[in-house]
């Protein structure tokens, strides 16, 4: 049980300094003066001018400034950090620093475009003109902020000739490389350890590196350990998807024009990859002769956005699936039946014609439809809706049920320029004990890794250890995002074990095997049509049934049913619990936190087992499908198109406008 493990807030070293960051209170502007009053010998102030190396964090191709030199690019941009023997002192000293700014008025703020990619096929404009029935909707996922999270932060201290860092990071090697560049140190003189974190929540990709650099600077300057924990909120990007869909005589989409815009903040971190994920997520499962998909990432004076459920994919999937339901409502057909009619073929194709081969889509839909008694409930809700001739006199039930189905990729897109080789190492020692070495060691997947190695090598699980350590001891396994622990690391560990199996009893012990992963070299897509952007996909379907309370205007969930193909299942119970937890967290976000904390609707999760040997992560697909099923159910309950998230009681009221 991980209660033994220490969150960064529980880490302490004697003589430690506590840090706090002074951040920009304005969106855009210039610092004209900083006045730091005398603070005493044991207070350390870290300013941009104190940085011996480069004042920036490199995130793949982009650079994010660490401390503001002169120009402020976003609200909350760090300006300086104050470290003192107590947190209280640090905060009080920080409040005595006077900073003057020249602000840039909002209308002069730079709100440009970072990336703008369009793919087209056929003649979309003509197709939209030629077809009389066009369904047009705009889907919006606003900035979502996770509420109470395990804290994000870092602790650094000198030891011998090295700097030791503990950080709540999903990417320990990024912390190391950043500290090396910022502090002008050699990488081998830095060792980074990961403290427990919840990958679902809080920004653990970029901010921990930032905090680690600041603590390392303070620690080098003072010779003392330094810790910094920040609760700076991390928001997901705001994503809008505008869809115009032409329908043929039988009501099936035949042409679609899609415009996606994602506000990614002041720096285009991961913008290319976000574009790929959005483009894939909006595609849907009906091949079209005419389409245009345009994806823009926009600039705004906000902090770098964080990505807790993939790079915008769930928002894109939400738009695709809600849109299908909207099309069904427009035609007054049952959205589950409609999906089953369209997706029966063994060979499923995406909008761009890419073949997904045989998929479990039909099966997952069938399962949730059956378990939730979708068809009956849908019919009842529909009758209710018809009976409600006018909302003004209506004071009864507002009930609805919605469905969504589809897939989410695991891992990065095929179009992603990896510069590095990431690897894991497995060692079988003289006592037949197996140790697994990976820098993603904080991952909840370790259970799966031990199980799968145990199966391959016939070694009892208690003799298998996932080694905890720092960047000096462990191989660089890359960032823990997009469920890479499951999608990339698990197969690598399996390959290591297979190799050990073949050498075992032939070679002397210990046997050490290392396997690496490098994405195929990056080639710009020549032809998007028929291009399949991802290699692995996790399929699922979700049904949500709810009722809107007629006094409080809060949605009350009557049931959530999910069916999902997570590939190989190692421990169904654990996985089910994890997915349920994930779903409830998302539910809180989707209703803007307006739900009593102990509120727990009934959630049923079934797994479809197709005899696959590799596990898949279901969290991204679940999130996107939940968003879509939830808004569809709400649309039916309110008899309005609900296409924005999160949705709170005031929003619901605004939709009803009946008072």
């Amino acid at each position, binding site marked *: *049980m*991980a*209660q033994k*493990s*220490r*969150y960064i*807030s*529980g*880490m*302490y070293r004697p003589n430690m300094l*506590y840090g706090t960051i002074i951040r920009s209170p304005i969106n855009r502007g210039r610092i004209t003066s900083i006045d730091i009053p005398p603070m005493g010998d044991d207070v350390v102030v870290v300013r941009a001018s104190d940085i011996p190396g480069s004042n920036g964090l490199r995130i793949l191709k982009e650079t994010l400034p660490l401390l503001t030199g002169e120009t402020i690019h976003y609200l909350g941009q760090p300006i300086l950090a104050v470290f003192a023997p*107590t*947190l*209280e002192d640090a905060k009080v000293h920080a409040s005595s620093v006077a900073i003057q700014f020249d602000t840039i008025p909002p209308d002069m703020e730079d709100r440009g475009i970072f990336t703008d990619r369009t793919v087209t096929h056929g003649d979309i404009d003509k197709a939209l003109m030629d077809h009389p029935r066009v369904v047009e909707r705009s889907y919006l996922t606003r900035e979502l902020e996770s*509420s*109470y*999270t*395990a*804290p994000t932060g870092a602790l650094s201290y000198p030891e011998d000739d090295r700097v030791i860092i503990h950080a709540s990071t999903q990417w320990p090697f990024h912390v190391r490389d950043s500290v090396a560049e910022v502090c002008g140190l050699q990488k081998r003189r830095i060792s980074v350890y990961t403290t*427990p974190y*919840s990958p679902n929540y809080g920004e653990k990709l970029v901010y921990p590196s930032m905090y680690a650099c600041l603590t390392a600077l303070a620690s080098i300057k003072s010779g003392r350990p330094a810790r910094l924990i920040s609760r700076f909120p991390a928001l997901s990007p705001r994503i809008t998807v505008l869809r115009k869909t032409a329908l043929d005589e039988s009501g099936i989409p035949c042409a679609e024009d899609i415009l996606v815009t994602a506000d990614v903040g002041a720096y285009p971190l991961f913008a290319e990859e976000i574009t790929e994920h959005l483009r894939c997520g909006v595609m849907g499962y009906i091949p079209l002769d005419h389409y245009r998909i345009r994806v823009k990432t926009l600039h705004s004076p906000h902090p770098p956005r964080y990505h807790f459920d993939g790079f915008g994919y769930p928002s894109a999937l939400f738009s695709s699936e809600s849109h299908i339901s909207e099309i069904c409502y427009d035609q007054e057909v049952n959205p589950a039946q409609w999906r089953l009619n369209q997706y029966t073929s063994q060979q499923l194709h995406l909008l761009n014609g890419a073949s997904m081969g045989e998929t479990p889509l039909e099966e997952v839909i069938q399962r949730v439809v059956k378990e939730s008694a979708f068809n009956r409930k849908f019919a009842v809700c529909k009758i209710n809706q018809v009976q409600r001739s006018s909302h003004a006199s209506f004071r009864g039930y507002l009930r609805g049920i919605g469905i969504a189905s589809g897939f989410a990729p695991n891992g990065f897109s095929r179009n992603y320029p990896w510069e590095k080789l990431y690897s894991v190492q497995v060692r079988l020692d003289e006592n037949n004990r197996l140790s697994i070495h990976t820098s993603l060691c904080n991952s909840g997947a370790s259970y799966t890794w031990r199980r799968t190695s145990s199966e391959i090598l016939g070694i009892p699980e208690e003799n298998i250890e996932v080694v905890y350590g720092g960047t000096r001891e462990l191989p660089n396994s890359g960032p823990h995002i997009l469920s890479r622990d499951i999608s990339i690391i698990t197969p690598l560990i399996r390959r290591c074990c297979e190799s050990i199996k073949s050498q075992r009893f032939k070679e002397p012990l210990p046997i050490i095997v290392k396997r690496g992963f490098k994405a195929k070299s990056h080639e710009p897509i020549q032809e998007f049509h028929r291009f399949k952007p991802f290699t692995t996909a996790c399929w699922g379907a979700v049904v949500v049934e709810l009722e809107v309370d007629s006094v409080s205007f809060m949605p009350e969930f009557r049931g959530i049913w999910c069916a999902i193909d997570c590939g190989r299942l190692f421990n169904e119970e654990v996985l089910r*619990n994890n997915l*349920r*937890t994930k779903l*409830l*967290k998302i539910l*809180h976000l989707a209703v803007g936190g307006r739900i*009593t*904390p*102990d509120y*727990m609707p009934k959630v049923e999760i079934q797994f479809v087992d197709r005899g696959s040997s590799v596990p898949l992560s279901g969290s991204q697909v679940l999130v996107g499908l939940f968003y879509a099923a939830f808004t569809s159910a709400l649309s039916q309950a309110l008899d309005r198109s609900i296409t924005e998230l999160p949705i709170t009681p005031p929003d619901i009221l605004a939709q009803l406008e009946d008072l």
Partner: protein
Amino acid sequence: MNITCTINGKQAVYQVSSDMPLLDLLIDNAHITSLRPGCRKGHCGSCIVLIDDRPALSCLVPVFDIRGRDIITFERFQRTRDSTDIRKGFEQAEAVPCSYCYPSKTLITHGIISRNVNPEPDEILAAFALHACTCLEPDQVVRGVLQAGSYRGRRRKYARSK
């Protein structure tokens, strides 16, 4: 201000500001690691400690108010028989909280069953009402607490009979 109190059985004196939240004192001065500072405003329920054997939200207690009091955190409580009742109870009910919630859930359960080993479900749920907990379903929590209560009851009866 000088604060003298007993933390996990050890008496100590701290020189800190009078209005500092107990949560901060415990983490930064007493180096308690089981605490999970969440919201720091009384909303999330993840900072529970026992003050004179009753659960309290340590982010809402100022240190001037703990002078002379006895504070127990999960580190110490975990090693008691009272804690074993609760662990066994939750295990028996197949309702083991995740590591983030574990310390607080355990201490709140202790608060409930110390007063009544057979509490009403409503009372149990009310006690956990702040917890933004997404792992356990309400009836799992109820079963866990009732089971813990029954272990506690049996143990007390046994102790009395001796």
